[in-house]
């Protein structure tokens, strides 16, 4: 069996999410990757070196430049007959393109898989991750998006795939046109999509003390969040709130400072990859979910943390 992965790339670099999709595909058979865009020679080169990739299909044309769904889906439909599985990372592009291609192939896509059981069977979260469904597809061909956090990214080096050119589709009639992008440029990443989030709770005592978190967030490139208690007390604005009635986040690293870990707060961050808790109460429920817990007074721990991070980096 052979699987085709639509490879995400940005600024000339293959995204880690795309390499996670390669890992998922490798569980299904031989992996070919499709690199699309305009002037993507270097990216295609890089793709040949991803561990586990046997062939790189390169579709180098202006119409693929902005990764619009309409031409990309058409391309996938053309290539799909040679494959049993067509995958992409569940990124904005993958989620945009895969279902469209699936409909054109008369296939029910399988979104955001978190595990591969066998060639027909996959596990995917439903109800915002509150349940995991194991589904089997009866379609002849499977179209899949992959939740990157659940698959280790395939190594960027170590492969030696060959490159094959793919003819570009026709540019007409274009029903959609790219206008512009506006990447968020604020100093702090967006809470919902940040790789690292540091949140403060009622233990912070006031808004002023959140300044203790700022240099640490700067050092880690982290977004700052808060518990409802901290928001309600007016320490920080509303949109900082993480939890059941705030934002749901799942960063690689979540640091909870002076937060007790009420279930309503956990509901917003329990899917984080690594959770760190700093709390002076050793019995605080947050420690039941923390990978690393530090029982300490935060007013002592935060300056130390700042110093420690400055030290080695």
């Amino acid at each position, binding site marked *: 069996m052979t699987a085709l992965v639509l490879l995400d790339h940005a600024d000339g670099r293959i995204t880690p999410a795309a390499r996670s999709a390669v890992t998922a595909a490798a569980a299904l058979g031989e992996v070919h990757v499709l690199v699309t865009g305009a002037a993507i020679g270097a990216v295609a080169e890089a793709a040949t070196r991803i561990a586990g990739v046997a062939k790189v299909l390169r579709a180098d044309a202006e119409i693929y430049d902005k990764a619009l769904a309409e031409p990309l889906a058409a391309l996938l439909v053309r290539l799909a007959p040679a494959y049993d599985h067509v995958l992409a990372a569940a990124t904005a592009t993958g989620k945009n393109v895969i279902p469209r291609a699936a409909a054109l192939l008369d296939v029910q896509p399988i979104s955001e898989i978190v595990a591969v059981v066998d060639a027909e069977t996959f596990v995917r979260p439903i109800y915002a991750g509150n349940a995991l469904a194991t589904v089997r597809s009866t379609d002849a061909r499977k179209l899949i998006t992959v939740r990157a956090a659940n698959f280790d990214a395939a190594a960027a080096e170590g492969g030696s795939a060959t490159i094959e050119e793919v003819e570009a589709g026709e540019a007409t009639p274009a029903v959609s046109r790219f206008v512009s992008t506006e990447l968020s440029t604020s100093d702090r990443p967006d809470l919902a999509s940040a790789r690292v989030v540091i949140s403060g709770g*009622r233990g912070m005592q006031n808004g002023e003390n959140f300044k203790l978190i700022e240099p640490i967030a700067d050092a880690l490139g982290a977004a700052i969040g808060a518990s*409802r*208690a901290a928001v*309600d*007390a007016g320490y920080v604005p*509303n949109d900082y709130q993480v939890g*059941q*009635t705030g934002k749901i986040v799942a960063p690689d690293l979540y640091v909870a400072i002076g937060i007790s870990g*009420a*279930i*309503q707060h956990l*509901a917003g961050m329990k899917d984080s990859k690594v959770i760190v808790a700093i709390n002076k109460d050793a*019995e605080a*429920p947050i420690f*039941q979910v923390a990978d690393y817990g530090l029982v300490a007074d935060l007013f002592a721990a935060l300056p130390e943390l700042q110093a420690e991070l400055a030290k080695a980096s």
Partner: protein
Amino acid sequence: MSAVSEREAMEFDVVVVGAGPAGLAAAIRLKQLAPDATVCVVEKGSEVGAHILSGAVIETRALDELIPDWRKRGAPLNTPATEDRMLFLTETRSYRVPMLGTVMPHMSNHGNYIVSLGEVCRWLGGQAEALGVEIYPGFAAAELLDEDGRIAGVATGDMGVTREGERGPNFAPGMELRATYTLFGEGCRGSLAKQLMARFDLRQGVDPQTYGLGIKELWEIPASKHRPGLVQHSFGWPLDRATYGGSWLYHFGENLVSYGFVVGLDYANTWLSPFDEMQRLKTHPSVRQHLEGGKRLSYGARALSEGGLQSVPRLSFPGGALLGDSAGFLNVPKIKGTHTAMKSGMLAAEAVADALANGRPAEPRSYTRRVRQSWLWTELRDVRNVRPSFAKFGTLGGALYSGFDAMVLRGRAPWTMRHRHADNEVLDSAAGSPPIAYPRPDNKLTFDRLSSVYLSNTNHEENQPVHLRLRDPQRWRSVNWDLYRSPESRYCPAAVYEAVDTEAGDANGPRLQINAQNCVHCKTCDIKDPTQNIDWATPEGGGGPNYPGGM
């Protein structure tokens, strides 16, 4: 704040406030008697049943009268009560009350059904709609339309008002629901019923209402342990002998167990926490053996009226009437109020149908007469002394008295015991109350408040005025804190109230943090606050718990 001038209005013959058993029975009966009457029901829960919290073992007497073929129509009464147990608990042991049917005939459940009252209400709602009743869940009756000396209907609350009380971008004014008669079936401690009692002096000459707080959990247990039809009640431990209360535990449905605990809100010890009492009771072998190995599915709480007949107010007033638990029609020793609520709703509907057909007098007066002539009255009369005897003689004395009352006097004692004090008047100061140490939750059998509230599915749109108001904000510090050390942070089953900055001891604290979003609408704070300083008002419609099927 309310946008009186822009409000739209709609006319009905009858508006019913609250889609509980009382309100729905009234609506159904009305349509049966007067099919052409226009009947509208408003319900503050997001759907019918969303705010209904009960045990519940129910008697079918009223239902039999209202919808005789309820079985054929698929009413969700599926588990007949088959086995009755009444336990007296000490810390480690339990004693079964023998000959229950004789000693405590009101505790006998033969012929009754264990149900999810929320499901029963959803079904009743369907029956009502099939008869042409218009039901609007998600809208709270927030205001009485008081015109020319009578109630001319209600208005629903404005939506989209910000926390500061200003109009937000999605502001939508409330609506006036005008009616010849408005029936109030808000359940225990209705927020409009409270205003009506004051407005028309309905409580004149009756005892103060007394209340209990019921806290409930729904469990799913291993099939091997499940004994559908088992009804178990307990009294005694963990409450002290001066405090009225006890637990229930019912096996029903598909491996479901309804477990809960009622505490009389006339308790005195300010350190008492009804929530923690109900948690620790689960560690008693007589409860633990049922729940162990199971999974908790849902949680909720609701106050119930325990005053009985002595506390029933005047029932009608110009423009309407009080129904069900809003009037206090609960049979306390039986802890059953569903059949009485339904019956009162039906009787009010009969009075109203009669009034509609006969010149539409301002007040549907025949309601009171109909109640007095019905089994509802006799039933409540016969048990009127049971609850007060507990207040008077304590747990064991009360139990003895009620046995005596039931066996010897058969409820016909020539005396009636009074409720002398309202529940808020009897709290002891912090200094005068013995502290109570509650165990920490184990997260398997026992849990903390917040993870419990989580399972009530409660929520309130954050950006709205706080629906729990302190009439005098200063008084919290001088009375609730200085004297009682914040009893609300213990009796509120939803962790709405938190005393924060308790160490400060200056202008910054201690102060009261009100997490209104957590509220499960049990109404306890409105009842128990020592100086009645907390006023519970209806929040934006649809807010509050979302009790699932099974609750």
